[in-house]
């Protein structure tokens, strides 16, 4: 190659200066979507430090562990023997009983990360001067964590359902007999995830520090549960109404009711009452959350 040819191959970099933007402006819709996806990424620790990712995936691993363990065991055993009608393992109806506490810890640890840094570091004032309202912000963050929580509770259930189905000799027959499990765990999982998400967001709206929010969420549910139990004993007949505030007791009963099982006789109420109590708890938490953000803006 001649020197002349070589010289021709070198490019020259021009600084074109500041370029005005003439592309699309997608307004509020894009802003809300961006806040939503940022919330989803934050929930998994993406774009954050290694510790954030480790914490998120550790908790997700704990929630999913029984389902993964069951699937691995099923696959392993089926190599050596005919499992006939499939293995008896973790049933869908039991799964949320196990997943409730790790999911609550997940919500308490990860949920505040979607809100508290924005206020602690003042980022929220940059969001609110863009083409969104404070409600757009609050709802987008809530929706992001709800979707993450739903994914976290549905994934092991779907794994259990399909792995159990595939381990059957007559998959079609088993599916016909058990298809109702699918909408049931979707509904029960939604109630659970909506509850943990909304409570976590509501409590987080009162502080700018994640550890404080985490402690407060866990205290509200666990200490609240003990307080409600003691108060219900002291309150006599009225006490059974107070027990409806004990989410740790009520949520498994709602799960049983959705799966068509006996809700148990903790007190005189039926399934719909427990369901209404959880919904009321969730709606009150949601109202407190939105009220806090409206107030913060003012």
């Amino acid at each position, binding site marked *: 190659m001649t020197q002349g040819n070589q010289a021709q191959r070198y490019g020259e970099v021009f600084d074109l*200066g*500041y*370029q*005005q*933007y003439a*592309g*699309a*402006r*997608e*307004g*509020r819709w*894009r*802003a809300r979507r*961006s*806040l939503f996806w*940022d919330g989803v990424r934050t929930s998994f620790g993406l*774009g*954050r*430090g290694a510790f*954030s990712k480790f914490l998120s995936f550790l908790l997700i691993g704990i929630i999913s562990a029984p389902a993964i363990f069951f699937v691995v065991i099923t696959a392993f055993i089926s190599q050596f023997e005919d499992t006939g009608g499939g293995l008896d393992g973790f049933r869908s109806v039991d799964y949320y009983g196990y997943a409730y506490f790790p999911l609550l810890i997940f919500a308490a640890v990860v949920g505040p990360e979607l809100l508290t*840094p*924005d206020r602690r*570091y*003042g*980022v929220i*004032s*940059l*969001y*609110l*001067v*863009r*083409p*969104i*309202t404070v409600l757009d912000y609050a709802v987008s963050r809530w929706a992001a964590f709800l979707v993450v929580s739903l994914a976290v509770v549905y994934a092991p259930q779907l794994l259990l359902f399909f792995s159990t189905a595939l381990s059957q000799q007559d998959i079609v027959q088993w599916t016909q007999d058990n298809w109702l499990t699918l909408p049931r765990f979707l509904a029960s999982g939604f109630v659970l995830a909506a509850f943990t998400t909304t409570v976590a967001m509501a409590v987080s709206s009162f502080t700018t520090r994640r550890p404080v929010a985490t402690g407060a969420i866990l205290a509200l549910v666990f200490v609240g549960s003990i307080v409600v139990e003691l108060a219900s004993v002291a309150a006599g007949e009225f006490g059974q109404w107070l027990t409806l505030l004990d989410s740790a007791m009520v949520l498994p009963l709602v799960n049983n009711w959705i799966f068509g099982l006996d809700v148990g006789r903790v007190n005189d109420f039926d399934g719909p009452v427990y369901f209404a109590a959880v919904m009321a708890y969730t709606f009150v938490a949601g109202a407190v959350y939105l009220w806090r953000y409206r107030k913060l*803006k*003012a």
Partner: protein
Amino acid sequence: MPPLLLTKDLTKHFGATRALDGVSLEVHQGITGLLGANGAGKSTMIKIVLGLIDPDSGSTEFMGVDTRSSPLVRERIGYMPEHDCLPPKVSATEFVSHMAQVSGLPPSEARTRAADVLRHVGLDEERYRSMGTYSTGMKQRVKLAQALAHDPLMILLDEPTSGLDPAGRQEMLDLIRRTGTEFGISILMTSHLMGDVERSSDRIIVLDAGKVLREGEVSGFTQETETLIINVVEGTEELSGALAKRGVTATLERGALIVEDADTATYDAIRDAVVESGALLYRLAPRRHSLNEVFDADDENLENGQ
């Protein structure tokens, strides 16, 4: 030409404190400095314009649209707050790109714009680092970059030189000047530092105790006076004596000799006095009104009911 930004009778109280008292002003294209002491109501006015707080009464319009009734107006406004607003664990490039998307830009366009504006504010390879590791100057640049990311028509800068050392301040003021002149983006910048506003702005609005004290072109605020300032390295007393012999009265003020009511003959007298006294002259210049004097004069006018 209609104003870009217009406020009408803005009033805001915080408890018993009146932060804004019927502020009406027009901000046109170019760089406008909103000058005032701490507590004058500058930040309150900007926050009301942006919809961060609601006024007790009055209205704000950007390009003829009420800023409070339509959040979409804010697609074309940028804001750089005085306080910290950067999450420490996130990189500048990711943050600015995200902010551009929240302003309505599609993701691929937002990434390109983030790279462009970060380069324009002078951040190169550092933009991939977490912002928690940045110096104050770099943080101020990121704050400016996020305000520019969506190519607004106007940016509102709240004390942009806050916390910067003299060199950093000068760089930031140069950057602001470039943004206003080369990028063609109008700027409303608040400051309590008169020098900052004087150096970077075309127009000045002076706010004091929640009221507009005065507004106009920068040159109108700092026009030359008939007072001369004489700085010498040594021989101040000798020079003062030589001036007195020629009938020129000079007073000593912070190491400089001040001569009032100077005319052409005064310059000749000073020249001769310098030669006679042997003083080492290094500066002879007409004094300009400082913005401090603007405040003082307007305070006196207010007191006198003018």
